[in-house]
């Protein structure tokens, strides 16, 4: 087999050279090679959103991308958003609104919400935007649609919505 080119990946500001099996997903790289198990594997097929991380500021499913393809990329995981003694506004709001139960989808929900807030700030439309060319209204339906890539089987959706709204309305950085 040909020599696999290495990939230098920065995770939460820490660089790592990946030279291993090219089959390794970014998700398994984070969980195994980097020991960052905050990013969860729920389906491994882009169907649940539990593995959501931000790459160069954009949310993606880390299960459906190869680690080796991320040379030069900056990855932000839940651990990069905040730890128990330094929780971000979103993380705090998830706690106070009980925006989770079992907690397994939670890091993905929070990473997704953080990136969503940025997308809205940049004026991205969604499927439920009345006019895709206009400004998105920040109503509940918009947030629900934009968060629909993150399943929560415990059914904490109403509380997740409340947590996100609180942060968006406060203008705090996520």
């Amino acid at each position, binding site marked *: 087999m040909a020599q696999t080119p290495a990939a230098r990946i920065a995770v939460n500001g820490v660089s790592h050279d990946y030279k291993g099996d090219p089959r390794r997903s970014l998700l398994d790289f984070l969980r195994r090679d980097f*020991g*960052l198990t905050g990013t969860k594997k729920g389906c491994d*097929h882009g169907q649940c959103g539990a593995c959501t991380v931000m790459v160069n500021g954009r949310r993606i499913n880390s299960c459906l991308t190869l680690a080796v393809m991320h040379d030069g990329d900056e990855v932000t995981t839940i651990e990069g958003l905040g730890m128990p003694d330094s929780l971000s506004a979103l993380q705090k709001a998830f706690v106070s609104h*009980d925006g989770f139960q079992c907690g397994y989808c939670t890091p993905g929900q929070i990473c997704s919400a953080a990136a969503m807030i940025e997308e809205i700030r940049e004026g991205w439309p969604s499927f439920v935007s009345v006019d895709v060319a206009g400004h998105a209204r920040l109503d509940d339906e918009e947030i629900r649609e934009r968060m*629909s*890539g993150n399943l*929560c*089987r*415990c059914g*904490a959706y109403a509380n997740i919505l409340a947590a996100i709204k609180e942060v968006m309305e406060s203008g705090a950085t996520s």
Partner: protein
Amino acid sequence: MKDSYDNPDERNLLDHTRQGVIGQPLDRPDGPLKVSGQAPYAAEYDRPDCAEGVLVGATISKGRVRAINRDAVLGMPGVLAVFSAPEMLRRAAQGGAGEAPMQDVRQVEFPLQPVALVVAETFEQATHAAKALKIDYDDQTGKAVLMPSPDKAEPAKDPVESGDLDAALKDAAHVVDVTYTTPGHASAAMEPHAAIAEWDGDRLTLHGSLQMVKYNVKELADSVDIPPENVRIVSAYVGGGFGSKLGISHEAVAAAVASRQLGRPVRVVMTRQQVFQAVMRRSETVQHIRLGADADGRLSALGHEAFVSNLPEESFSEPVLQATEFLYGGENRRLALNISRINRLTAGSVRAPGEAVGMPALEAAMDELAVALHLDPVELRKRNVPDEVPGQGKPYSSRKLVEALDAGARAFGWDRRMPLPCQRREGEWWIGMGMASAARVNILAKAEARVTLRADGTVLVETDQTDIGTGSYAILGQIAAEMLGQPIDRTTVHLGDSLFPQGAGSGGSWAASSTGSAVFRACEEIRAELARGLNCAPDDLQLRDGMVWVEGGEPRPVTDLMDGDIARVGRIEPGELMEKVKQATYGAFFCEVAVNAFTGETRVRRMTGAFGFGRVLNAKTARSQCLGGMVWGIGMALTEELQFDDRDGHLTNHDLAEYHVPVHRDIPEMEVLLIEERDAAASPLQAKGVGELGICGAAGAVANAIYNACGVRLRDFPMTPDKLLAELPDPFAGPT
């Protein structure tokens, strides 16, 4: 104190304690760990030199493994071994089994049943090798039963027969005689089943994702033939269970077998598809419901006969009629549950087994009766609340059904409902409202917990009880803090380790009231010890913020009364009260739906639930449980359905793309009302269970709202556009 709970504890002690944390909507103590990804789930423990195992599913529907062609796979990079050992499980254990379930993995009973485990150095190597493994079978698929066959059902066990149902139906002023069907459901917990096994000599440690540790220890020990005391299970955080992790399943024993052989830790995580295909399903049901009522809507006749399925020899059958037995009157009745055998994965507990599917059907049939009577559906229910359990003469413990119906109707604005269908149209959408009662049996289970009031005044709670998202970490700490008068931040709860006393486990909504009662009793013993120091009766003891006093006396630090740690193990067992009074939780659902007049798509626009389940231990986590149940109800009503290919019996929608659990946008604004209640018959906490109540009937409210919106009465869940289309009125016609 006797362990068994035989007499109602009407002291309502938690109403008189001083700390003021019980019932409060406190944040979960495990929250900061969970929102930062620091709570470790089963697969996430870093074990040095851990090998990776991947299960292999059978390509036949029934038969036997004849040969496993190991060699080709063993030559692949990184592959360490291939196992198809007799100890490995072919079925997952049912909840509370406490012994090995069906073993001998080479006997194939359903499609994709795990038959082997491939272990390699890395996950990628093991995954590919598992796909490459060739297995020869003695294929008996031709002899398999691939479709549910109610006509071949076994005779009903213990049917309820009283009075003369047929005669009563003949005499009734109004009769509803309908058949409802529900498809199979999956728990679909977000965390796939996972285990890391490691051996130290003849002692096995398993980090697993499990709901009932004390039973799981016995199941695992029995499976690998070692004494239970040689097994330690850690299940500190569980990424959802909903019944699917009540008993051990394939990954746990496979990991244990492989680890023993290889002499190193082995991790086995089931793929999402394998979880769907192999672990546990809720049976499909066919429910024949007959209701007969007089002109005022009082039930005289109630027939509910259900057909479910399971693998041969499984004792579990979806207890569809569980709430029908006690919810409404109707002295002439026949309730019968019939099971037929099928070669599909094990049918077992999925959130609220029984009521989850029985209640929506019953409540939809009740709606049909209300229509026949031209009677408000809420009023119909209130007219049929019996004084005692029909046919049993058994009294009810505290029951808040009527209160929930009234409070829910008021909060929801039920009076704005149009009595007839097709009255309200907004653009393309028909708008309608529906309601249903909620009911779920309440169970107290045997439980133990240790509470330690430490010499520095801090409190430690330890039990093998799990928290599967239910809030055990929160409420067990609140009970101890309340009873011992300590601030909540001086209370620590350790869960999910078999080294701790045996809690009730997470299932059947019993964890909070059962393990909570064990914590309560341990605290009572500590209070008794403190009372001795003050020469007072324990119930006269006043405790708050670390201070202790008797009424009129001077508060002093509680630590002054202590020579060191005071540790006590509290115990509770179900007693005579479980038999003497009918204990259940009750509520009501109200919802508004929009049905697209063109496409038949249904969207729930808002939903209100009102629930009475005894004392609320934490208003925040209890509300979340109710919300979650209602989300499940919406999924059941509109989208969730296991689809099997009847030609070979395999599950075709075995993933989260095609098995449609609700997404954010499916879930509207929701309101939860917690009805104040104390049920002293249920537990010394006067609390009952709440983990499942929110689903028990919810789908019926949605179905009834669909009828109210567009006049289409579907009797086949889920109510997807394809089914609605056929009966929808002309979309260009307006309201009638």
